[in-house]
């Protein structure tokens, strides 16, 4: 059976036309892959946020998820393997008006890029990191990553994995991230909501999305197709409130604790820099020519915008609850 797709019509009709580079469709991802869900949720979150899209940059590393930067219609950089976070750090610090979002995979962010990940979290760098965690290096053919659960089969652990995996929310939390959440690619609405919250959060925010790699991880472990993965998420993933991030590790096909695990206010790297320099240098300190009153005015404006956005999100939530639209009560 073959399905006829009118690609021009698809490009023109898509509700995401303004948010995605439709001229680059179709994308490279496999049927059943979870990355598309994350991209969709991301675009949806940006759309709902009403933010100035010119002030948003998306940076990716290498791998399947590394291709996200190429499909979103924002300032974007597809960097080298593992280096999305330092590139994002440079962009953010050189141009503090930008909201900078890193979207990349588990291998990219926590294997080759692990050092950058922990230090960006430690500094509370004001960037958002979305990690599509499919427990495998997809682009290179299904090798072991730092998140692959024990006993899972990967092409470089053909007899099953014997390494201890990272639990990413715990890692991010321990390193100083000020917003940490986890969902699965089944929970698109929660992802969208989490991304909106993170867009409105000042500081290092980390969102992990557990997603299927049907072509490699699912197949190699005889776990069926994309739909089977979603069935597994439906069965085993549940929202945990007030959970200690030390307790959210994932065993092979085991429980998946979801939710927003961390949200706290703490000065960001840039705020700490400004405060320290201003204390020592007084009015002489003008980052990129911005005086202290200008900085304070900007901070005030941004805080008001964030409060407004939060109020809007709260209203929407209340309205949805009132209309009983089935919003996940246990959600955020």
């Amino acid at each position: 059976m073959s399905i006829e797709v009118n690609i021009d019509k698809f490009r023109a009709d898509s509700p995401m036309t303004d948010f995605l580079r439709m001229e680059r469709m179709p994308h490279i991802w496999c049927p059943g892959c979870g990355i598309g869900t994350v991209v969709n949720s991301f675009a949806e979150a940006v759309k709902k946020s009403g933010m100035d899209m010119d002030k948003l940059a998306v940076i990716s590393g290498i791998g399947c998820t590394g291709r996200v930067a190429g499909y979103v219609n924002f300032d974007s950089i597809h960097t080298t393997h593992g280096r999305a976070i330092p590139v994002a750090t440079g962009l953010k610090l050189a141009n503090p008006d930008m909201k900078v979002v890193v979207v990349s995979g588990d291998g990219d962010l926590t294997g080759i890029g692990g050092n950058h990940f922990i230090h960006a979290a430690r500094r509370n760098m004001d960037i958002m990191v979305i990690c599509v965690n499919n427990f495998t290096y997809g682009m290179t053919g299904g090798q072991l990553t730092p998140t692959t659960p024990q006993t899972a089969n990967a092409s470089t652990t053909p007899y099953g994995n014997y390494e201890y995996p990272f639990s990413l929310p715990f890692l991010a939390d321990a390193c100083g991230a000020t917003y940490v959440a986890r969902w699965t690619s089944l929970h698109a609405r929660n992802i969208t909501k989490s991304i909106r919250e993170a867009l409105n959060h000042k500081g290092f925010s980390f969102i992990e999305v557990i997603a299927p790699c049907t072509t490699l991880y699912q197949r190699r472990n005889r776990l069926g197709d994309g739909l089977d993965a979603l069935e597994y998420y439906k069965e085993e993933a549940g929202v945990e409130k007030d959970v200690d991030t030390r307790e959210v590790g994932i065993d092979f096909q085991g429980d998946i604790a979801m939710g927003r695990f961390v949200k706290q206010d703490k000065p960001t790297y840039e705020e700490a820099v400004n405060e320290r320099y201003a204390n020592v240098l007084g009015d002489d300190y003008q980052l990129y020519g911005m005086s202290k009153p200008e900085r304070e005015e900007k901070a005030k404006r941004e805080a008001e915008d964030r409060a407004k956005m939060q109020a809007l999100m709260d209203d929407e939530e209340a309205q949805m609850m009132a209309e009983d639209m089935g919003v996940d009560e246990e959600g955020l």
Partner: protein
Amino acid sequence: MRKTAADPKGVLEGSHFLDGDHAIAEGALAAGCRFFAGYPITPSTETAERFAERCPGVGGMFIQMEDEIASIAALVGGAWGGQKVMTVTSGPGLSLMMENLGLAVMTETPMVIADVQRAGPSTGLPTLPAQQDMMQIRWGSHGDYRIIALCPDSPQECFDLTVEAFNLSETYRVPVFIMTDETVGHMHEKVVIPPAEDIEVVERNYYEGPKADYRPYKFTGKDVAPMVKAGDGYRFHLTGLTHDERGYPHLTVEQNEKVVTHLIEKIDSNADKIIQLDESEMDGAEVVVVSYGITSRIVSRAVQLAREEGIKTGSMRLITIWPFAEKRIEELAGKVKAIVVPEINYGQMVREVERSAAGRCKVVSVPHCGGAVHDPEVILDAIKEASK
């Protein structure tokens, strides 16, 4: 390219007693660099320290990154964020930067990288001079590419050439290296920083036109497309993959040929404009000593001694290392008996001299293992031997 006077805010006008490392930081600030990302490594750290101390006062940003990989990666983001950017390092750190040097080359991102060379391999002699990274910067990142490299022999030139490095980097959208060494880096001398209006600075060439028509690249092999900065609504895309003029991946052999040829030709076709040489006593010279950086200062003594002994000896100092002055060497090789090439390595730039001379004259290498400069007598002996 828009040339203007320097922003007085970054210019520490006056006569100073500075070492080469500090002079590089002052050159960067004078050139308008307001973003520095680096990682400490001997003997380059003083540049980072100077920038860290000076940048809040001039409204710049300094960040000590977690390693050299992150440092140069941050420069790619910083440059497209709209700043002039730089980092500094030495051999082992330079090795770590090779990956994202490739990304900077491929995305045609302007940046300046100062390499204060120390003796290797590996940790080697961290506190002592060498000139052993000359080929690493040229070939160290995978694939075919070109960069520009300048080689100061004094703290004054560290200042002057750092300004020049930023100007070249903006003109050709290419990483530019300042190839200094531990001795020049830690040598204190008089450095005169001129008033801002006397310092010529090339401002970034920003695109001005309809947003939909913006293309971050053009593959002419002659010049480069204007840039934009993040946040201005152009929605640019950059990738390390082979790409088209919009910056989108275009993974064909034909496109790769276009891109790589452009990366090479934009430098090679402008080599005559880029290359600076400092020649002395060349008239009627039988032997010419070609050198660069700290070695040039030893050479001036050796040349003096040789002339005292009646050997007609000239000196050519390579201020620009890459692109290499192959035409001038070729021309010279037809006129002189021999070219002598002392350098603090086991023979790196001498290979370029040999290639350019192509057998038309004798080429004599005067190697040094690193950790010290040459004894002028050793160079003198080589000149004498070569003149026979």
